[in-house]
């Protein structure tokens, strides 16, 4: 089967559709609406007490 431009578009679509579903499925569970921003430093526990 020679690849022409229609097959090129099909090649793009066959990756775009499952990728979109996987992005949806990978969402954080309810109650954990977001993961921490990449640059946020973890909070430090107060000293003493």
């Amino acid at each position: 089967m020679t690849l022409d431009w229609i097959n090129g578009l099909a090649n793009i679509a066959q990756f775009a559709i499952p990728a979109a579903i996987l992005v949806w499925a990978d969402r954080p569970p309810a109650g954990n609406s977001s993961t921490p921003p990449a640059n946020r430093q973890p909070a430090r526990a107060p000293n003493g007490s």
Partner: protein
Amino acid sequence: VYPGHFAAGLALKTIEPRSPTWALMVGVALLDFLFGVFVLFGLEGGTIGHLNIPWSHSLAMSLLWSALFSACFWRLGRRVTMIVFAAVMSHWVLDALSHRPDILLWPTSGTPLGLAQYTGGLAGWFEVLVCIGACAWYVRSALRTNAFGAHWATACSVIGLMYVAEYLVVR
């Protein structure tokens, strides 16, 4: 290695959960997206098993595409940038391990790589192992961290369906 690429993306998500999932999914498929674009412009083509993919899939160009794409995520930190870089390069690694010899070192090099000529039918089992291993790792991390993978069963099912589709179409 159609589903294997996405399974690798899910596995990479577990290493750095702050990595944008869409970036990982686009990353693992980027070389094939580029292949589709280059086919549209007549730069690449071929037939299944005998692909002409010097600009999208050669090692040198894959490193370039990985660097360019991962650089877009530099503001998210070095670790995320490296994971996105690894996502794009994982495509080259998996293809080099499972393709017939059509992966060049650079666009004009004359020595194609691709271990499928030596491994034969083992390439199919290799992909099964990649998919199962990556999905198992992903589910384990999703359940442990509760930071991603709310619908991990759907994600794994999509990987499985992709494998069946690939099996029916290619083999």
